[in-house]
């Protein structure tokens, strides 16, 4: 499968890489695929928190690199979702503790045992980013519909090209349909006009996200989550299914304009 090793990256921090990684990985595991999520954010581990696995960690990726244990021994089995495994980052080491060739080796050792291998990249465009992207066959860039995030996403796309990687696919995260309808936030078409990438999905702003993370239960586990629904759809698209992407867009009507004119808004 060409889309087996998938790196999730963004340039800018805090745009939702770990959230998207945890949710797509969970969604695919729920469908019966064997999935491992690798936290490549060395020194700032948090994929374990999103998955609610923080107190089950014994070994981490740096132990694997140092040869203390083989990769399989360091995997943490998810307690809620069958078929899902986490290879945690180290919390105390720095980014240089895992080199690109180290991660390539780990991925090669896991490759035959899993249907999907996700790599959650650190923010930035330095060493840690390069390490995370190097083993990937597919790259997903997560961006918020917001100036700094889009600018950084474009940088990342340029760097992937320089590394001779396939062109990243785009996930727009935290789009707020209300702000979009008012014309205050870039809509899906705007983002695509600026970035010109293949769109893999659009995840809306979900006010319950913080509580899902607080509980360590990814949004895709909840039928009622609006972000969870689109994250499940992204997983379907990775499996090659043609699920339409909602195009929340700006469409200020004449009536809206009149309301703005006479109303108190």
């Amino acid at each position: 499968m060409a889309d087996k090793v998938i790196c999730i990256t963004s340039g800018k921090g805090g745009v939702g890489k770990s959230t998207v990684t945890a949710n797509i990985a969970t969604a695919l595991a729920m469908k019966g695929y064997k999935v491992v999520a690798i936290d490549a954010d060395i020194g700032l581990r948090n994929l374990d928190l999103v998955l609610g696995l923080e107190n089950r960690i014994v070994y981490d990726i740096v132990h694997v690199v140092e040869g203390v244990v083989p990769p399989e021994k360091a995997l943490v089995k998810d307690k809620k979702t069958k078929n899902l495994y986490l290879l945690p980052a180290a919390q105390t080491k720095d980014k240089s503790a895992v080199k690109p060739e180290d991660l390539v080796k780990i991925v090669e050792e896991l490759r035959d045992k899993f249907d999907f291998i996700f790599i959650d990249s650190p923010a930035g465009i330095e060493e840690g980013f390069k390490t995370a992207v190097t083993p990937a066959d597919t790259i997903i860039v997560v961006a918020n519909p917001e100036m700094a995030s889009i600018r950084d996403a474009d940088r990342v796309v340029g760097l992937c090209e320089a590394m001779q990687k396939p062109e990243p696919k785009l996930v727009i995260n935290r789009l707020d349909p209300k702000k979009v309808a008012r014309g205050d936030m870039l809509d899906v078409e705007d983002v695509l006009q600026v970035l010109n990438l293949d769109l893999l999905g659009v995840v809306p702003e979900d006010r319950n996200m913080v509580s899902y993370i607080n509980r360590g239960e990814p949004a895709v586990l909840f039928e009622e989550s609006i972000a969870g629904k689109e994250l499940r759809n992204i997983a379907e698209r990775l499996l090659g299914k043609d699920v339409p992407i909602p195009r929340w867009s700006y469409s200020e009507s004449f009536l809206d304009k009149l309301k703005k004119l006479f109303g108190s808004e």
Partner: protein
Amino acid sequence: MGFMDKLKGAFGKPPAKEVAKKRLQLILKYDRAGLPPNAVEAVKEAILKALEEFPFIDTSGVNIHITESENTKGKIEIEVPVKNG
């Protein structure tokens, strides 16, 4: 806010997302070409100075902008109009 301001706000002022898109498109042109944001202005100034000595050139109509290029990081295009008559 007066009625005229509201009228302007509702029908005149472009929505914030349009402004953001325009700004981003410009920023990314410079980013992709690896140029500082004042690069084009600086080149334009130098060119205008050099063109001053040619009376048949309409310096007020000189147009300069960055575009994408196939084999280089970017391309600066300059249009230099000749005066009529």
